[in-house]
């Protein structure tokens, strides 16, 4: 039974010339790593005269092989796909639709009658809900559904507001007053003596989607990076696949490098899918022109949470334990770092405390470049923190790393 294709070289030392097994330079196999002369004793048995004999695999090939195997496994795992892509999107849909009309962008008031003032009210600030008569409009305010009612009847205007929100009432009064004043000047036919030009400096108070998208995206990427690394490590160790790889010539860093590469690919795909949905009309995310600055942040954030995952994977013994530990770390972090709300509205102590979390820094950076349109300087501090975090936690993870359970 020669056709099993087993090694036929039996002479002493015939194989030892091939030992430059790819752990060194990282280049593709070159000439000279091919087996030496005399090792092939017969060609008929194998049927592949050329290319049959293994040549030393370069570390790069090994890394690519492992990465490809992981990616294939990932994209065939429906549960993983659900939690990576669909689950964060669900949060975006739920929170995005709940908060769609919130924020300070526009107030709806009840209106009745018609005339030039109602026509001139700035639509981006005041939305008008029309009622057939003054009584119906005022009744709506009384019931607490709307903050104010504006009735225009010929040249006279009546503004009725609820006493419950004095600030909003004063704002509304100011807006209406300004419109009335402008209309009066226009009616007098004289050019205005004073003029005011006002322009927005930045979008201080964000529409919900502007902070929800970066927040939930950061959380989604963080979660899948941490879980992906932790579960790969634990399940590969449990199945003795780690041991099997250790008994192949592949260097350790090729295994880690493959996991890093896969996590980065997954994170970028996640981000693309996520943003693509968020910019559709129901959500209405407006991307700043510097949106691409989010990419380095995504990469660094992924690395930071990957290091957490590797640490969890080094410590945990079962898949369940790894899952629970990763959740225990990432989930509270998500709630305290402003994933689901605008952290700038949070109490001061929480704002300071949450700065210990890498997710907070990732959130802030993503929010600045995706939602607020800030430039490169907004990325620097979060990047530095994320890199530092990755190095420290990654170092601890390598210290605690184990090939085997026992």
């Amino acid at each position: 039974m020669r056709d099993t294709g087993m090694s036929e070289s039996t002479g002493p030392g015939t194989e030892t010339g091939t030992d430059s097994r790819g752990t060194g330079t990282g280049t593709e196999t070159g000439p000279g790593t091919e087996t030496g002369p005399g090792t092939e004793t017969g060609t008929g048995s194998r049927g592949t005269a050329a290319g049959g004999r293994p040549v030393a695999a370069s570390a790069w090939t090994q890394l690519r092989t492992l990465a490809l195997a992981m990616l294939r496994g990932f994209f065939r795992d429906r549960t993983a796909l659900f939690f990576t892509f669909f689950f964060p999107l669900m949060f975006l849909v739920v929170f995005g639709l709940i908060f769609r009309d919130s924020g300070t962008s526009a107030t709806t008031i009840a209106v009745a009658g018609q005339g030039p003032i109602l026509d001139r009210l700035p639509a981006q600030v005041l939305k008008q809900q029309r009622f057939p008569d003054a009584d119906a409009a005022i009744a709506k305010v009384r019931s607490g559904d709307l903050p104010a009612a504006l009735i225009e009847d010929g040249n006279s205007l009546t503004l009725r507001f609820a006493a419950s929100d004095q600030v909003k009432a004063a704002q509304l009064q100011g807006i209406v007053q300004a419109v009335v004043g402008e209309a009066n000047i226009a009616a007098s036919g004289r050019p205005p003596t004073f003029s005011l030009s006002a322009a927005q400096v930045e979008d201080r108070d964000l529409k919900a989607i502007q902070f929800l998208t970066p927040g939930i995206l950061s959380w989604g990427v963080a979660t899948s990076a941490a879980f992906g690394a932790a579960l790969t490590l634990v399940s590969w160790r449990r199945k003795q696949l780690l041991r099997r790889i250790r008994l192949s010539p592949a260097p350790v860093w090729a295994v880690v490098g493959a996991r890093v590469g896969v996590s980065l690919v997954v994170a970028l795909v996640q981000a693309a899918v996520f943003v693509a949905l968020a910019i559709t009309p129901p959500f209405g995310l407006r991307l700043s022109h510097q949106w691409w600055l989010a990419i380095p942040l995504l990469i660094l954030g992924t690395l930071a949470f990957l290091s957490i995952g590797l640490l969890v994977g080094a410590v945990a013994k079962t898949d369940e334990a790894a899952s629970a530990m990763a959740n225990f770390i990432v989930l509270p972090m998500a709630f305290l770092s402003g994933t689901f709300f605008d952290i700038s509205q949070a109490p001061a102590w929480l704002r300071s405390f949450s700065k210990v979390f890498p997710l907070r820094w990732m959130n802030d950076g993503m929010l600045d470049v995706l939602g607020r349109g800030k430039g490169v300087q907004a990325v620097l501090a979060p990047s530095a923190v994320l890199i530092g975090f990755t190095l420290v936690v990654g170092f601890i993870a390598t210290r605690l790393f184990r090939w085997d359970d026992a």
Partner: protein
Amino acid sequence: MRDADGDEVAIAVEGLVKTYGELRAVDGVGFTVHRGEFFGILGPNGAGKTTTLEIVEGIRQADAGTVRLLGQSPWPRNPALLPRIGVQLQASSFFDKLTAREQLQAFGALYGVSARRAVELLDVVGLADKANTPESELSGGQRQRLSIACALVHDPEVVFLDEPTAALDPQARRNLWDLLRGIQSGGVTVVYTTHYLDEAEALCDRVAIMDGGRILALDSPAALVRALDAPTRVALPTRILDAATARGLDGADQVTEGGDEVEISTRHPARLLTQLAERDRLDGVSVRTATLEDVFLHLTGRAYRA
């Protein structure tokens, strides 16, 4: 490296010791495996087989003793040695969700084996028609075949198989024997552990019987059986031969009666069988000589160990 007989040595182990706390898992193990040999390590659970194998493979460090694997030391991790050995582990160490072909190609690529060569090996282990089947949907026997193929994908000189036939049904087990014999006839040195003594007897050139971290006996299965010097047992149905007649036969050392059978223990089977033939009492006879199992039980004791 050659031994005294001039045979080329693939593995030389001397004075191996490995202690886990109080437990001496391996306690002074030494053996030599020749190139091209099929070498079996037998023993009850906890005998130290797997630990011994792990030390020889280079996964664990021995507390004392030396290992030379193809003339080199496997510990610490020796990347020059790894492409020359193949391993099949107890757990089914496969990548998640890959098909049989993809598994082989993935393992092959770790060694620089071309994808085409990897696919050829599916044929060798008889899984060509399962190429696109996910590993998780293979039967136990098919999965073991794939696992062995993954261990052989880079044409190693020595392959370690840790209980390759465990938990397989008898057909699948027999099927695998042919594959294992084929590996050896290709010139590969095979070291394997098993619980199945019939299998070891059928496959191994030599076996080491281990218990309590020590090697109790090491030789070819036939030599071990001969050394046991056990009596031959001749059994006949009671309707053919009754116990009293049996005791009167020349050469019947001991006669036991159980159920509808009489069993005669003898050191002179030829003399005994001749007498039975003369009396025309051979219908339904069964003759059992000692097997490796008897050697094993003799050495390791019959006490049940959980």
